[in-house]
């Protein structure tokens, strides 16, 4: 179990606990935090990452994958966890408000405003979240879109096939209010990871290939955002490096032979400590 599961999930998955989505958690302090977070997003992105650059001189020659350290400082403010599609669907089953909004990371890194990859979820109706927050800024708010559970599930299936990693995010632990769909090139979380500060936990799962089934097509290699899968010309099979796997499940989605399954990370002694 990740730290949040122990602390906020009574030993089960913290992001499947409705209490972590409760309206009572949205107090004045959190409202201020959320407003400030988006109002100063560009500034925070620039100064935050620039500060990391000064702290940790990134050596570009060092491979940027594998056991990246957790950004301890961000754990209480804004932190996430990778989750596979079936857990996204479980969340969508109990949330009552699903709003698709544009992605602030992509706007900062690519100047793209119409890509709506971010899903704000809530179990309550509120003037503040998410509508009230986004409506403060007309250029943010023009892209907001309210979805039904069925529509949202369809969109997530598409995103999964397109190789986007799903993750839940809290705004001051443990209040969960968003599900992101990230790609390494477009995400400030991945940028932080390249600088040795990862603002999200790996999933409660790890992917495994049934080698008898694998025909070496390499579709999984192509889609893995974490560079965790390799093809061996000798065996003509693909293998997943377990320490590099984040358990997002995207490889499983593209495997035409259903050769990939997700295992429980917590049942594997070394990986159970690998977040």
């Amino acid at each position, binding site marked *: 179990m990740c730290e949040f599961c122990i602390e906020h999930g009574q030993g089960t998955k913290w992001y499947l606990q409705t209490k972590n989505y409760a309206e009572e958690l949205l107090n004045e302090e959190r409202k201020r935090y959320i407003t400030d977070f988006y109002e100063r997003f*560009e500034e925070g992105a620039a100064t935050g990452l620039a500060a990391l650059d000064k702290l940790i001189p990134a050596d*570009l020659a060092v491979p940027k994958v594998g056991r990246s350290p957790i950004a301890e400082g961000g754990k209480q403010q804004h932190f996430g966890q990778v989750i596979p599609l079936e857990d996204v669907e479980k969340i969508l089953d109990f949330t009552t408000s699903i709003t698709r909004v544009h992605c602030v990371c992509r706007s900062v*890194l690519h100047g793209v405003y119409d890509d709506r990859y971010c899903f704000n979820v809530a179990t309550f109706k509120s003037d503040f979240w998410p509508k009230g927050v986004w409506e*403060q*800024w*007309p250029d943010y708010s023009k892209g907001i879109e309210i979805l039904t559970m069925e529509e949202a599930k369809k969109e997530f299936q598409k995103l999964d096939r397109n190789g986007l990693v799903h993750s839940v995010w809290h705004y001051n632990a443990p209040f969960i209010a968003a599900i992101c769909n990230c790609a390494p*090139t477009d995400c400030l979380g991945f940028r932080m990871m390249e600088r040795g500060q990862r603002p999200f936990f790996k999933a409660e799962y790890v992917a495994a290939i049934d080698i008898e089934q694998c025909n070496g097509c390499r579709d999984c290699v192509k889609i893995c955002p974490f560079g965790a899968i390799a093809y061996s010309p000798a065996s003509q099979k693909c293998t997943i490096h377990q320490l590099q796997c984040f358990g997002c499940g995207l490889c499983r989605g593209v495997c035409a032979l259903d050769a990939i399954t997700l295992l429980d990370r917590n049942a594997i002694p070394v990986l159970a400590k690998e977040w």
Partner: protein
Amino acid sequence: MMQIEWDDKKCTSPRDCRKCLDACPEGVFMIYPRDGRKPGKVAGDWAIMPVFLTQCTACKICEEICPQNALAVSVES
């Protein structure tokens, strides 16, 4: 670390030109609103700036592609 000298006055709005942002293979640039964000106001005055300098390899693709000659890349010894 590499240095990118960048002339904010020469740089046009990313709505008109975003060649450096799209061309950089390492994602060194980001866009930002010059006046910041204010409630009820569209953040209109956007600009591009080089931020992620540890990722810069000094390949100078941005310098060559900038139509305004607003960028100069140098290697810091």
